[in-house]
């Protein structure tokens, strides 16, 4: 007695909702598909008709060597100029009629087919993947910006779900197959990582790339006073260290983000690349004018980022708080550059860093718009991040003094330099608060008292 296929209640309910009849569901289950898989297909918008076509497979139109050829096969043969004897020979050798139509459609000539046959017949191809029920006839059009990620986000491929149900590396819009091992992703909710501009920021980062080795006018660097060169080298050491730390941290989060949000994964990849470029260019500057590297940073601020337990926590502290400070540092380095090379480096690092901040703050805004209940949680992350940042201020005289000497043009004017340093910190905090305000996060009253002090200068 044959086994009876039973349809689980959850599957039956989903099938009724999506218009899949019971016999089709039973047929699909009989082929080995699981209930979860079928629900997944239905959620993706696969219709009953597409499913029937998929289940029919490539052999559905197979004809024996002696029977009448189908009208479709005859038409394809006429177009491809395959003689009937060749077709019958191929069918007799075991080829499926649908395979032959595929070969003809793909442009295989009669002569090539005969060569295959002479070698023992055409290879036994599966080709069932050609019947996969993904959305077909997709024709993305280049825009003024070229064929961008946003331009290809059309039809089902542009549907970015609030929850991504797959544990594997399956691209968004493809069809899952059973049995694939999980990738170990841990982020499956859009609000955990999304920014409405991440695809645009990715394209911007790709378009606005620069090459430190050849674009920076290195020959414009001339010997500086010893204290100024030492200050610059200490700044370069500090920046190289923190940019590498950001790259390392983001690199660790990348494998946690599921493939449903590939725009975020791609944008973060460019961020890591830009962190690497900053490490490269500031290290090159330190080693190009008779100086060398300086002293390591105490890294209190780094810890609050490294220890973050969820993505939004990391993003709040690194890409909004810390990067706001780094962006202000690049602004001031641009202003006080001693030569065109340093001007170029700071100006371009500034552009890169502004994108990092843009991602961070637009992510926070997305969270606020979709999970307002996380507001206080984010405030607490910022409490922690600001506290650790202040520890750096107190325990890292090397960085503070180096910036002050560089701004002042020498340690004899360090008082003036320290004033400029404090202005830089003030500007960083003002811009940080303004960005948070845009993201609907009022922070001015809750700002760490130590940071607030900079605003009163």
């Amino acid at each position, binding site marked *: 007695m044959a086994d009876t296929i039973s349809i689980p209640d959850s599957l039956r309910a989903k099938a009724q909702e999506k218009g899949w009849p019971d016999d089709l569901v039973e047929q699909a289950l009989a082929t080995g598909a699981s209930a979860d898989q079928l629900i997944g297909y239905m959620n993706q918008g696969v219709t009953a008709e597409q499913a029937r076509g998929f289940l029919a497979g490539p052999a559905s139109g197979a004809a024996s060597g002696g029977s009448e050829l189908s009208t479709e096969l005859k038409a394809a043969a006429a177009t491809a100029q395959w003689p009937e004897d060749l077709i019958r020979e191929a069918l007799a050798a075991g080829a499926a009629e649908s395979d032959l139509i595929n070969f003809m459609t793909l442009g295989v000539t009669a002569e090539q087919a005969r060569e295959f046959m002479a070698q023992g017949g055409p290879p036994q191809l599966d080709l069932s993947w050609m019947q996969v029920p993904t959305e077909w006839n997709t024709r993305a059009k280049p825009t*003024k*910006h070229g064929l961008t990620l946003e331009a290809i986000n059309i039809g089902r491929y542009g549907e970015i779900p609030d929850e991504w149900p797959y544990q594997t590396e399956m691209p968004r819009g493809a069809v899952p197959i059973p049995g694939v091992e999980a990738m170990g992703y841990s982020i499956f909710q859009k609000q955990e990582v999304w920014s409405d501009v991440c695809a*645009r920021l990715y394209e911007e980062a790709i378009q*606005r790339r620069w090459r430190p080795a050849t674009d920076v006018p290195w020959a414009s660097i001339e010997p500086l006073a010893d204290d100024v060169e030492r200050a610059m080298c200490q700044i370069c050491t500090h920046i190289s260290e923190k940019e590498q730390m950001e790259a390392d941290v983001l690199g660790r989060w990348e494998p946690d983000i599921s493939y449903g949000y590939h725009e975020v994964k791609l944008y973060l990849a460019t961020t890591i690349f830009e962190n690497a470029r900053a490490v490269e260019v500031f290290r090159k500057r330190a080693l190009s004018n008779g100086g060398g590297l300086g002293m390591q940073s105490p890294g209190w601020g780094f810890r609050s980022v490294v220890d973050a337990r969820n993505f939004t926590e990391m993003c709040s502290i690194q890409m909004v708080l810390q990067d706001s400070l780094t962006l202000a540092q690049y602004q001031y380095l641009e*202003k006080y550059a001693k030569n065109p090379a340093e001007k170029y480096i700071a100006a371009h690092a500034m*552009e890169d*860093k502004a994108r990092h*901040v843009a991602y961070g703050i637009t992510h926070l805004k997305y969270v606020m718009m979709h999970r307002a209940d996380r507001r206080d949680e984010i405030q607490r992350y910022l409490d922690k991040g600001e506290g650790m940042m202040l520890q750096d201020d107190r325990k890292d005289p090397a960085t503070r003094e180096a910036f002050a000497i560089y701004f002042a043009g020498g340690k004899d004017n360090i008082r003036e330099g320290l004033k400029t340093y404090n202005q830089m910190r003030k500007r960083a905090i003002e811009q940080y608060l303004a*960005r948070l305000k*845009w993201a609907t996060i009022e922070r001015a009253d809750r700002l760490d008292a130590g940071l607030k002090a900079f605003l009163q200068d």
Partner: protein
Amino acid sequence: MPAFPSVEWFDAIREITNKDPEFRALGTVDCVIGIKVGSKILEVTFDAFECTNVREVGENDLRDMDFWLEQPYDKWVDMIENIKKNGKADLSHTLNTIDLSLPDGFARAHDGYRRDAFYRFNQSIQDFFNASAKIDTQFLAEAAVA
């Protein structure tokens, strides 16, 4: 000879910019910026690889821009003359340097996110102003824009 500030002056550097392969090589630039010189306000639109439009607008339009550039008239003249003299802004006349030199800043905006376009596209906007080195500028009398 186009007069600064005017649509004609900005159109002249817009045409130079859009033909400049170095501007294109800097990458896409997408922002709408304002130029505020006294009471005169011009809106300059960048889209993808080009500057697409310049038009004269009113004070209320500033709200729809990413940011606007504003400084005293004599500082505008100093900036443009410096660019003409050096072929581009020297180290002390770049947009960012001027921004940090003015008490109220050079790049201003109504919100903290859109203002960051000033940093994201800084070198393209600098390149746009640097194109003014290739034209002769007649400056309107300050009273004309007061």
